[in-house]
């Protein structure tokens, strides 16, 4: 059970990054379906940064903990941010269709990731780099099941939770959050109120993409312990589903991501089921998302609905 819960949290954090990033973007009124691609590129960017840094050292084993982590996170966020910038430019400045742009970015991002990972990254270094990312608190093992479940994780887990909490606070308690929600609900109103709609949309699309990209880095470096695996994009779709599941609330998404993690690994944890049944179980997160969607639609409370102008381009002089 302890192993199961630990695993649920560990996998859930991948979703958490993607979900919080997507929430921030959607709160600005932009439905970024490029998240799966952005998470892939985030993983790629982090791996690239780390492998370049370690490759530059005479002895890769002497890498500094702080520097390696920083380079990994920053390069991950940077490359994901570039993807976000492409999306922002196309959908905000060019007013391209958001769904189409997002899907294109997903296809582009996964392809680019595969190319760079094959051609430019020294993957033999990743396992070593991973030991830095997975390093947990030294006393975590001594605290029994509590330490095992909550404290045995690498630093990115806590960064993810911190980001989610900060995002929740930002949205609910600050002037910036109020303005951001206004932009996503009704950009014309926000504009008339003197809010720089374009700046907000750009800023939070970029921040959202950067945060989501770190999810890819986490998945490779921490969850998979540095072994490379394609298919991060399938987790990206779950992150987008998680946004709906948690009703666009970053604070709820912490819990929701653990639930998704648990549902996803349930298929591996239950003994004696066939491969086909495993695949069925893997659909559970989508099933609960659909249920949540149905329930919130029936209840029809305005607060649990997506931002009103989600997916719509804004042009001030449009009539």
């Amino acid at each position, binding site marked *: 059970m302890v192993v199961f819960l630990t695993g649920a949290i560990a996998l859930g954090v991948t979703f958490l990054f993607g979900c919080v990033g997507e929430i921030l973007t959607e709160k600005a009124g932009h439905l970024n379906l490029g998240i799966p691609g952005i998470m892939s590129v985030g993983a790629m960017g982090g791996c690239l940064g780390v492998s370049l840094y370690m490759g530059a050292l005479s002895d890769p084993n002497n890498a500094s903990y702080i520097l390696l982590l920083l380079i990994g996170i920053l390069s991950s966020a940077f490359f994901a941010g570039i993807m976000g910038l492409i999306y922002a430019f196309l959908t905000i400045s060019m007013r391209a269709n958001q769904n189409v742009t997002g899907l294109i970015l997903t296809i582009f991002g996964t392809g680019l990731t595969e190319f760079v990972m094959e051609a430019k990254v020294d993957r033999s270094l990743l396992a070593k780099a991973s030991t830095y990312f997975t390093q947990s608190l030294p006393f975590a093992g001594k605290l029994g099941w509590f330490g095992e479940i909550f404290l045995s994780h690498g630093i990115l887990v806590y960064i993810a939770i911190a980001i989610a909490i900060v995002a929740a606070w930002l949205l609910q308690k600050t002037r910036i959050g109020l303005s951001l929600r206004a932009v996503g609900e009704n950009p014309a*109103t926000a504009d008339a109120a*003197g809010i720089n709609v374009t700046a907000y949309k750009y800023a939070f699309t970029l921040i959202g993409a950067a945060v989501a990209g770190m999810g890819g880095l986490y998945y490779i470096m921490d969850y998979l312990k540095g072994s490379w695996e394609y298919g991060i994009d399938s987790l990206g779709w779950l992150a987008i589903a998680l946004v709906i599941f948690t009703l666009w609330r970053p604070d709820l998404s912490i819990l929701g991501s653990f639930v998704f993690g648990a549902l996803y690994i349930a298929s591996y944890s239950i003994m004696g089921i066939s491969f086909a049944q495993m695949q069925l179980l893997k659909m559970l997160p989508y099933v609960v998302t659909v249920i949540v969607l149905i329930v919130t639609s029936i209840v029809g409370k305005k607060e649990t609905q997506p931002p009103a102008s989600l997916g719509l381009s804004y042009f001030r002089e449009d009539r």
Partner: protein
Amino acid sequence: MENTENMENMENSENVERKENSVALELRGICKYFGNVKANEGVDLVVKKGEILSLLGENGSGKTTLMNIISGIYFPDEGQIFIDGKEVVIRSPMEAFQYRIGMIHQHFKLIDVFTAAQNIVLGIKDGSRFRMKDVNQKVRDIADKYGFIIDPKKKIYDMSVSEKQTVEIVKVLYRGADILILDEPTAVLTPQETQKLFAVLRRMRDDGKAIIIITHKLHEVLSVSDRVSVLRKGKYVGSIETKDANESILTEMMVGKKVELNIQRDDPVNPEDRLIVENLDCMNREGVKVLSGVSFTARSGEILGIAGIAGSGQRELLEAIAGLQKVNNGSIRYMDPESGEEVDLRSKTPVQIRDLGVRLSFVPEDRLGMGLVGSMDLVDNVMLRSYSKGKSPFLDRKNPGALANDIVTNLEVVTPGVHTPIRKLSGGNVQKVLVGREIASLPKVMMAAYPVRGLDINSSYLIYNLLNEQKRNGSAVIFVGEDLDVLIELCDRILVLGSGKVTGIVDGRTAKKEELGLLMTKTVGIYEENQKAQASEESNE
């Protein structure tokens, strides 16, 4: 009418005594084009401090566009703007705030899921720490100062139209605007609320603020403003001191020709019962009772007016007849003039009811919300009513096209052509298309809710004439109106709704405005009960 003119004279004599005020805002040669539509063409305008300026013009004459230019929503293609004598460039609403220009839009710019206070504080960067508690208090202070009633914590989606407008006005006051622009603020208010608003406006004027108000109601123009500027077809016609103006002068300036301001009322010919409503009970979507025990009869060849404060159940009543609103109790019977049979409308679908000849032309607050599709052109919108008729798998565009042309010509719709998307037209023109289309189907029962809301005086009279024509053709016309003067002049009988109950049915020929006003505000309704229930719920929390 004499009354208001007397009031007017008194106020103006006050004004003359006041010393000459300095110019707050001046526009020179403003031009703005939307594609082929010339919304503004060389417009000049002057507003002084401590002055209420009325901006008059027919629908589509470019008033709203001009105001949007001042408030930074649109950027002018040509022309100069001067504030306090200095030329300025207003690129965005934010810059407009910096020049202390505040606009209260015709279509409210509010965010539904926010509270009143959140909407009010939105976009303000005054450097102070952001605490909703302080904002709520400041909102209450402003409300107290000007005598508004507002709950800062109430969510916008729970508010009535007039409450929303209060939020809009407080929003502008909160920012300390010196130049206020109000785009048709009274269109959605009751006469009492309008008087309160005007009192506030006068107080602000005496405070030295410059106020521009757009309204189509000429008696309001005459009673509240100091000066009137007129636009016609995007061009500036001229200005006149209100004390030198009267309704016919203003109308002539607006339209460019003399207009007969009388509504003709023929006596009903062979009235027959057409629609019999008995003991109708309805609940709205939130489960609140909005109609209770409503009974009336609509007769052919007669206009039945429905008066009432906004939100007294008018909408639900018409929707119930059209089959769009669930009816909890009561009966709606329709006497089919062709077969002579009695039809129970409650058992029919909306389409069947429509095919029987019962037509609803509903003009909601948001004109595009019901009945028209914004991105489709006039022909396609007209076709929405007829596309299912033909037998061929292909659409017939010819007849709707002809009809669209008829509507444009007969109702004087200002549009570059019948193939312009509806959303590019100004609000009043959109409305003409909507009403014109419904009338074209030669209904047996014609229901029109607020068909002249936001229409200028010339267009309003066009609509009244159309309704009269329906009456002469033997239709039973049900007309939900706001302007009591018009109801009294136009309708044969007037039904008054008060909080979802029929508080009286009076003869239009003998009715008095005061009598209607009293009936409208008769307070024995379900509304108060609901309020009480809500209040007790809140105190429980």
